[in-house]
């Protein structure tokens, strides 16, 4: 919203104060001011009022005229002018030689053979409107030679407040409310509005009007006739233009002026078109043509203003074309009303049509404002069109006033909330300056909240704190740390495990962490042959490609692998992210935090790659949980999973995830020459596995005996299955089993383990060791393993 410093100064005397500094304080205490501040009129000087005394056609140009103008110098000035609207006796804005307009300094200048000693200006040239159809026509009675800046408010400081920062301040949607803030910030008096006395019309008949719907809080109206003025005074037009609106006609301008001044939207109906005002909704949707000429579909939830049964305006949003003020309107029925804010907001959404009025109404305007707005309107109307005659009494139906709000708190409350001391007098002065009624008794304050703040914004004591502190200034706060007792802080197991996982994956396994979106990438997945898997969907996805939430991170990660083909011949990526695995019995999403790891290689064999991944899973388990994971062969369920070497991963007996090789079809779609393997681990399940405690074992003082067994393992038998053969001996004489070597050919799968025997009490005899070894060997033999001892 654009604001005029001149307009604000109508209501508070800011003489002698640094206006830019005040605007800055306003930004820190009230609402955000945009960076650009416009010093209107500062680049214009030397423009005077002049009268055209003669007009001669230019002998060689059809467009140009040769004028003699009276610029108040005692003699006439020759001017060449190209404007079409020149005529004798017309007064205009004249830039004398030496005048400045922007970068240009006016000097005598030859135009088609004739010297022009100055320039007649259009309104757009001096920046007071966008009218560039001709030169400005001044109808006010002003002597020639008068500097127009002394009669018209060209000089102004215009600043813009971010509308979003006014969301919660319905009172700040007009200059009057803004001026109240400036008065409070500057510590100056806030002046009342000049208004017409409406009681003098009490004897006149009422406007026929009735609220028939609870969505209308208040409706105030008055009827005026004999309006003769059609064009607004220049100063009104300048203010409207500076504040971003275009002048239309006097009556329309005046309603806009009132809205920009008081924040109260008003509507002027042509009284010929509106009688029996009824405010209500309709049973069925219908089409309604608004004054911008657009046919709009209005539904049964939208509040309408009607003349009898005929809708004439969409309440709070826009008037209808048929009842609009036109140039020959002389009688008007004025609406100053208040509607339910939420209903206006929803209607604008349904109609996809926001207007200056609806933006204000949806903020919960103060319904107390409707009548003073009419009084102010009449004051301005009669001042500028003295013949205008009020022909009805003020007609006001106040269906739903807001209940008054009175708050009570003590000094200790303010002290506690602020953490500093703001004394009683400052509190009283601040609140009074903002229009609050304040009484004090000892340390207790009783505060009556003014009507313009109770509609949504100040309803409880914490709101008062904001009022006191923002005017006090946050820059003036003494800054203190909190005095709270200290307690140890314990991180959760999931969080700790997740961080450890990331560190290990990055630092030990040289993987790269990536992030991705929580939905399935329909297009990208399709490109590598992975269809979207049925899962819960977004209701309002902006495009169908991101509609379905993912239930595994692997498809996402495979898409990302494809992105990175060519990055390196070998790389691995991982992500700790979320998936949704369907809905639970309460229809709520089952959200899981997963760790997904994918390895890609063009140089390693698929077996090497697979075991690298296996070692990553084992490494995470061993490092974080001191546990060895168990792998159980399983049948894959997804199309991108290779049916061979798919394993479920268990940790401490808990199923925590799975690992496998990417199915050749998908793998080839990503990269014909590379192998890709994946694993996904449920982080919460991983964290839930009990970490094995460190059990320190004193190194034995007695020599240990080592025994190497080379085992040729037959096809179909897994090394993991052989462990039971030495499980009984472990923890007794057998202290450790370590793999020394693996040897694989097409026919042979050989693993050499070293058995380490020892005791803390004595030196073992080779006989008792041999006995254990023999037991192990015979166990192995039963599983078809042949032994080569060393």
């Amino acid at each position, binding site marked *: 919203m654009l604001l005029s410093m001149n307009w604000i100064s109508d209501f508070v005397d800011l003489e002698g104060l640094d206006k830019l500094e005040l605007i800055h304080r306003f930004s820190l205490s009230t609402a955000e001011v945009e960076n650009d501040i416009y010093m209107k009129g500062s680049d214009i000087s030397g423009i005077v009022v002049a009268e055209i005394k003669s007009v001669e056609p230019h002998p060689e140009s059809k467009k140009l005229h040769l004028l003699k103008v009276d610029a108040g110098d005692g003699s006439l000035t020759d001017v060449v002018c190209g404007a079409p609207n020149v005529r004798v006796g017309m007064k205009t804005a004249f830039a004398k030689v030496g005048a400045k307009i922007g970068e240009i300094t006016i000097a005598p200048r030859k135009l088609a053979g004739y010297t022009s000693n100055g320039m007649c200006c259009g309104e757009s040239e001096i920046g007071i409107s966008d009218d560039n159809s001709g030169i400005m026509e001044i109808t006010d009675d002003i002597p020639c030679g008068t500097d127009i800046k002394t009669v018209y408010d060209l000089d102004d400081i215009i600043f813009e407040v971010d509308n979003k920062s006014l969301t919660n301040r319905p009172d700040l949607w007009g200059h009057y409310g803004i001026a109240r803030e400036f008065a409070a910030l500057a510590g100056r008096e806030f002046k009342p509005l000049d208004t017409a006395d409406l009681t003098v019309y009490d004897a006149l008949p009422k406007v026929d009007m009735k609220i028939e719907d609870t969505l209308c809080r208040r409706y105030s109206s008055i009827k005026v006739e004999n309006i003769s003025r059609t064009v607004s005074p220049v100063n009104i037009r300048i203010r409207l233009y500076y504040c971003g609106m275009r002048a239309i006609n006097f009556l329309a301008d005046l309603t806009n002026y009132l809205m920009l001044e008081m924040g109260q939207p008003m509507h002027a109906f042509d009284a010929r078109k509106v009688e029996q005002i009824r405010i209500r909704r309709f049973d069925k949707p219908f089409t309604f043509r608004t004054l911008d000429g657009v046919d709009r579909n209005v539904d049964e939830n939208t509040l309408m203003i009607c003349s009898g049964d005929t809708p004439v305006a969409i309440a709070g949003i826009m008037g209808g074309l048929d009842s609009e003020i036109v140039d020959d309107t002389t009688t008007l029925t004025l609406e100053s009303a208040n509607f339910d804010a939420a209903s206006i907001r929803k209607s604008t959404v349904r109609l996809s049509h926001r207007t200056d009025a609806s933006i204000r109404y949806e903020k919960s305007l103060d319904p107390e404002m409707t009548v003073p707005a009419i009084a102010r309107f009449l004051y301005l109307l009669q001042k500028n069109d003295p013949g205008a005659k009020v022909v009805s009494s003020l007609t006001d139906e106040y269906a739903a006033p807001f209940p008054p709000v009175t708050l009570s708190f003590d000094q200790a409350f303010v002290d506690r909330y602020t953490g500093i001391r703001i004394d009683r007098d400052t509190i009283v002065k601040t609140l009074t300056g903002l229009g609050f009624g304040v009484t004090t008794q000892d340390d207790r304050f009783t505060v009556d909240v003014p009507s313009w703040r109770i509609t949504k914004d100040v309803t409880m004591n914490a709101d008062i704190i904001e009022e006191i502190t*923002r005017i006090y200034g946050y820059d003036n706060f003494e800054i203190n740390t909190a005095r709270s007792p200290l307690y140890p802080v314990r991180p959760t197991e999931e969080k700790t495990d997740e961080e450890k996982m990331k560190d290990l994956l990055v630092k030990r396994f040289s993987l790269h962490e990536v992030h991705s979106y929580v939905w399935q990438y329909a297009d990208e997945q399709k490109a590598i042959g992975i269809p979207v898997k049925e899962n*819960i969907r977004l209701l309002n996805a902006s495009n169908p490609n991101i509609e379905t939430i993912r239930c595994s991170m692997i498809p996402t990660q495979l898409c990302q692998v494809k992105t990175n083909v060519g990055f390196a011949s070998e790389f691995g990526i991982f992500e700790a992210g979320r998936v949704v695995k369907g809905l639970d019995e309460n229809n709520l*999403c089952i959200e899981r935090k997963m760790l997904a790891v994918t390895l890609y290689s063009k140089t390693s064999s698929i077996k090497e790659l697979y075991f690298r991944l296996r070692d990553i899973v084992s490494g995470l388990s061993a490092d974080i949980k001191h546990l060895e994971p168990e792998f159980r062969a399983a049948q894959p369920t997804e199309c991108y999973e290779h049916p061979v070497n798919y394993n479920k991963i268990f940790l401490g007996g808990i199923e925590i995830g799975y690992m496998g090789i990417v199915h050749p079809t998908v793998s080839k779609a990503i990269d014909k020459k590379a192998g890709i393997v994946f694993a996904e681990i449920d982080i919460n399940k991983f964290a839930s596995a009990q970490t094995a405690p460190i059990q320190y074992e004193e190194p034995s003082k007695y020599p240990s005996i080592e025994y190497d067994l080379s085992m040729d393992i037959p096809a179909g038998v897994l090394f993991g299955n052989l462990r039971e053969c030495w499980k009984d001996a472990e923890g007794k004489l057998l202290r450790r089993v370590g793999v020394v070597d693996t040897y694989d050919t097409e026919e042979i799968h050989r693993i050499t383990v070293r058995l380490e025997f020892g005791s803390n009490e004595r030196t073992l005899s080779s006989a008792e060791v041999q006995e254990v070894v023999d037991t192990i060997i015979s166990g192995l033999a039963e599983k078809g393993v042949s032994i080569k001892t060393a």
Partner: protein
Amino acid sequence: MDEKVLSLKERIDKELEEISSLSELDNMRVSYLGKKGSITALLKGMKDLAADQKKAFGADVNKLKEFASQRIEEKTEELRRRQVEAEIASMPVFDVSAPAENCTGSYHPITLVQRQCEAIFRSMGFTVEDYSEVVTDYECFEAVNIPKDHPARDMQDTYYLENGQLLKSQTTAAQNAILRKYGPALKENGVPIKAVFPGRCFRNEATDACHENTFFQMEGVMVDKNISISNLIYFMETMLSEVFQKEIKVRLRPGFFPFVEPGFELDISCLFCGGEGCPSCKHSGWLELCPCGMIHPNVLREGGIDPDEYTGFAFGLGLTRLAMMKYGIKDIRDLNSGNLRSLSQFTDDN
């Protein structure tokens, strides 16, 4: 000197000359000084000599024995030295400048920034909480003073799911749960609530270099008996100075957020010019950084905490924005791209 001794001595010298390996030398030692060696044999033969000869011969043989031991010892040293020298000479010169392979992985930049922030807050006694991404309407809105029909719901384009849940549009969605989790300890034992909760948030908006529908925030709350606006400014200034590793000034302006009252927009002194004014801060000297405020009484109440007894502050830091500022990332979409050409550059930075 005895002739046998002499000739043996000459032979030893000659043989030593020819020996070039330690194993040959060992064989030689055995052939002279071993149990069956030549010198040992001489000593054994002494018993056949006359008594007057015995003494002189014995002395000669002992000298020879000493001589042989010493020479073999010297030769051993020499051979060992030569062996080491040969080993050294055989060592090729490596190209140490050859590119290192696969020596480190990388963290996502969000992880780095998030960890930095978490560490700062932990050091100030805050717990770090995790929270889900799919939440209920109650968690995201109702519980934090955004009732149905509240205009603030229009301000956010929330992703809704088929079952009525939604993707959280703000980390504030975790606030109620955290107040409820730590409220009992506050009320029963006076343990202040000090928590940060980083998390991923979602807004249904079109993406471009500056806008993402998926981004990270970190929310923080502190609740105790006398938490004040003054404390809020202190914590924000201290924490942000740590985050940016330089003295930061903060500035509060009134801001409207339903879950706080009073609510603020927090600006920091410009990181680039220090407040003098530059293009980055549009010559204002300040950068708008994050919303914060005193927790709204309705939010405390809904979290089971009596707002007449306790007060608290809350803030919401944009982790994604921090990461972009810190590392000069210009296109926000790079963060979720999975593209290692950009992401692999972020090695450990804590």
